[in-house]
């Protein structure tokens, strides 16, 4: 086929302009254009960023990378996020009580693990308890602190009792940590065997090298898992990844090098899959320390960064301007009508004067370990801040150990978040008072009240109003500069096809293996 399938989406501002009620948002690629009917067969080969020899099958240690993509094909969750960003039942139908405090999950019939065992409530409970309690080393422990009790009601019903109401609890169960694996006799989780209820079985797993998956014939979803085989190769070098795609060694890669993306796009037979999700760059300041205790100083710094320049130079336009709030257009309750904080040296000076801190001197700690181009971003920030009379010094920190030695330790640094599908999850994790990862030590009474109220509210319009106010508070009073949202970009050849692509992660919400098919 010699037709050039490379597609450049609408411009991001064009999308933003029409974003008013865009809950599904961010989906830049018009997919209907080449929607085809899915068919069985073939082999999918992915050149994946982020694998390491230390990868394990233990869901407690999942972060990102080929293991997670593979295990989301081998296993299922209770709930999945669809291309519109909604939580839809996967292994279970769910129902909250009136206060959204007790959630009942009814497992679907006829779901079996690949060794033939039937899925039961015990397996679900083990899969969640793996991330709870004193003994767990799971990164998802924090998300489950709201769970008071998990119990079975017969073989097919699991009941989650929460500490307080949470209307978004169903979303949370779609987190990749909570893949359902079989339970051992003693109720612990058997992750070592790598068994799941998904459409593929793990055939070969060599950490940091390759993962091979084979389709199982008795998969319970009739309209998923089209490829016979999938191979996930770890290719951490960006040039090598692109070469592998160009030479046809792999069919899909994620995270192409933005500097050469326009050259790659010129090549016939390649398609760009670009979505704006919830991932964002942040620069948290400790609100209880030094100059940052004054909200005027925080505002001054927010007005001293040229977001458009950062977007154009660091991301080469592959993202969206953010408004110092972590809630993205891809989120359900995104408030598009809030006033945008933009580059304005005069305003920055004005707020510094209010604070009595003209000629402010601050140091920011940065490393590319936080996110690609983080150092470039702070250097641009340094220049634009100079025009506002702010003397910003950049302290370059070692990549190695950045998250343990710099982040949450230094009063002003760079950080990165993949974002969360729900407002409540994102806010509770990073912006609530006393949260483990409250990277800015922000404590706003009104915000904290609203957080609890909105969490338990089942009325959508009331929630939207509350989340709107909270986004305003974070944006104006918050201690975190959030300049940009970053797009998820994958590049694929014309041997593979797909429907509408989910915007919550790379690679179709990391579900590419079960969702895509052979063209």
């Amino acid at each position, binding site marked *: 086929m010699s037709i050039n399938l490379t597609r450049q989406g609408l411009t991001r501002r064009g999308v933003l302009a029409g974003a008013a009620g865009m809950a599904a948002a961010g989906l830049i690629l018009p997919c209907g254009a080449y929607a085809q009917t899915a068919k069985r067969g073939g082999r999918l080969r992915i050149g994946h960023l982020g694998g*390491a*020899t*230390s*990868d*394990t099958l233990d869901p407690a*240690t999942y*972060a990102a990378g080929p293991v997670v993509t593979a295990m989301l094909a081998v296993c299922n969750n209770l709930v999945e996020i669809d291309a519109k960003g909604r939580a839809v039942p996967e292994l279970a139908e769910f129902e909250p009580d009136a206060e959204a405090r007790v959630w009942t999950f009814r497992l679907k019939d006829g779901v079996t693990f690949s060794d033939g065992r039937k899925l039961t409530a015990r397996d679900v409970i083990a899969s969640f308890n793996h991330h709870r309690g*004193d*003994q*767990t*080393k*799971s*990164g*998802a*422990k*924090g998300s489950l602190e709201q769970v008071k009790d998990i119990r079975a009601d017969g073989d097919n019903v699991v009941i989650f009792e929460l500490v307080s109401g949470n209307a978004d609890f169903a979303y949370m169960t779609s987190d990749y940590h909570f893949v359902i694996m079989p339970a051992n006799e003693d109720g612990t989780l058997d992750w070592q065997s790598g068994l799941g209820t998904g459409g593929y079985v793990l055939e*070969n797993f*060599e*950490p*940091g*090298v*390759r993962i*091979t998956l084979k389709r199982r014939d008795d998969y319970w979803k009739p309209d998923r898992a089209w490829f016979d085989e999938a191979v996930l*190769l*770890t*290719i*951490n*070098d960006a*040039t*090598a990844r692109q*070469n*592998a795609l*160009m*030479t046809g*060694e*792999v069919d899909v890669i994620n995270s192409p090098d933005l500097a050469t993306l326009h050259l790659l796009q010129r090549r016939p037979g390649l398609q760009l899959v670009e979505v704006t999700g919830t991932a964002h760059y942040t620069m948290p300041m400790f609100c209880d320390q030094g100059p940052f205790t004054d909200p005027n100083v925080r505002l001054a710094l927010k007005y001293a960064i040229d977001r458009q320049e950062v977007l154009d130079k660091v991301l080469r336009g592959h993202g969206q301007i953010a408004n110092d709030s972590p809630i993205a257009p891809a989120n359900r309750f995104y408030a598009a009508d809030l006033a945008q904080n933009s580059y304005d040296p005069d305003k920055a000076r004005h707020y510094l004067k209010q604070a009595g801190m003209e000629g402010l001197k601050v140091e920011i700690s940065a490393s590319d370990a936080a996110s690609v181009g983080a150092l470039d971003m702070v250097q641009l920030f340094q220049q634009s801040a100079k025009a506002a009379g702010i003397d910003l010094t950049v302290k370059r920190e*070692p990549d*190695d*150990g950045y*998250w*343990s*030695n710099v*982040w949450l330790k230094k009063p002003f640094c760079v*950080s*990165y978040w993949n974002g969360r599908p729900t407002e409540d999850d994102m806010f509770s994790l990073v912006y609530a008072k006393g949260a*483990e*990862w409250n990277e800015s030590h922000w404590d706003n009474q009104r915000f904290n009240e609203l957080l609890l109220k909105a969490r338990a509210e089942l009325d959508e319009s009331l929630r939207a109003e509350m989340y709107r106010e909270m986004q305003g508070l974070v944006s104006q009073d918050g201690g975190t500069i959030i300049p940009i949202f970053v797009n998820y970009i994958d590049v694929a050849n014309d041997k593979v096809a797909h429907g509408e692509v989910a915007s919550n992660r790379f690679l179709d919400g990391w579900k590419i293996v079960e969702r895509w098919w052979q063209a």
Partner: protein
Amino acid sequence: MSAPAARRQRPILRMIVGRLGIGVFTLFVISVLIFLAVSLLPGDIAQQVLGQSATPETVAAFRRELGLDQPLIWRYLDWVGGVLSGDFGRSLANGRPVAELLAARLGNTLFLAAYAAVIAVPVAVGLGLLSALWRGSWFDRIANVATLSAISFPEFFIAYILMFWLSVRMGWLPSIADPGASPRLGEMLSRAFLPAITLVLVVTAHMMRMTRAAVVNVLGAPYVTMARLKGVSRWRVVTRHALPNALAPIVNVVALNIAWLITGVVIVEVVFVYPGLGQLMVDSVTNRDIPVVQACALIFAAVYILLNLLADVLAIATNPRLLHPR
């Protein structure tokens, strides 16, 4: 065996045994140094694996599970005890036995090193001999300039250039060297060809220059003039009279380069996605996965020790006077 021959071989044996003894001691010292060095790095495996999602409790639970809450000296003694009984322990990161983790990677690394060496050593020595024979000629200059240019570029640059022309443009060779789970020999040879050639270009200059210099040196000796005066042909003078006497420094350089081919090719591994030991060691250092780092370091150190020993033995075999340093 005649008496003089036996006398000649015994000191070599004694030397080998002595050097092996020192080698074992060196390995011990290295293991202590590496253990200390990795412990001095900021952060530990619990923080590295959990990354941004590390909290005090999860880190503590992680450490407890791996026994990292024990004092350093206990962990070291525990590890030494294991190694002495033939057990290299398990990877802290993924719980797999270190021996199993290393086996496949070591095989790949040795395969690539052997592949490159089999091409590079004859080419380098041949080019060196010819340049010595025709020194000052166009051939000499071109060979020198070409090999020196190749060694002057960083290896990833050579790798990208080769990949761009031979793989992306021409489509003759695959750009990814990973041979898959159960490869055949032919597949392995064609997949590893680009990385092997990259390595050949990097190591050739060093060996070729040393061959040339050593042979040129010997060619100035009076006995070579004597041989020429007897009427021996130039090629024969070089191969029969000059080369054997110049072999000691050449063998040493070859040994050092082969050691580098085994221990220093992590960049080529990354660029060509080749699952070798270098990548494993870098990942393990990043993760503070001490058992794996230790095992890799011991293998690398042993490679250096053994290859150096082999080079000395070969040098002595060609020039027994080296056994009796003055």
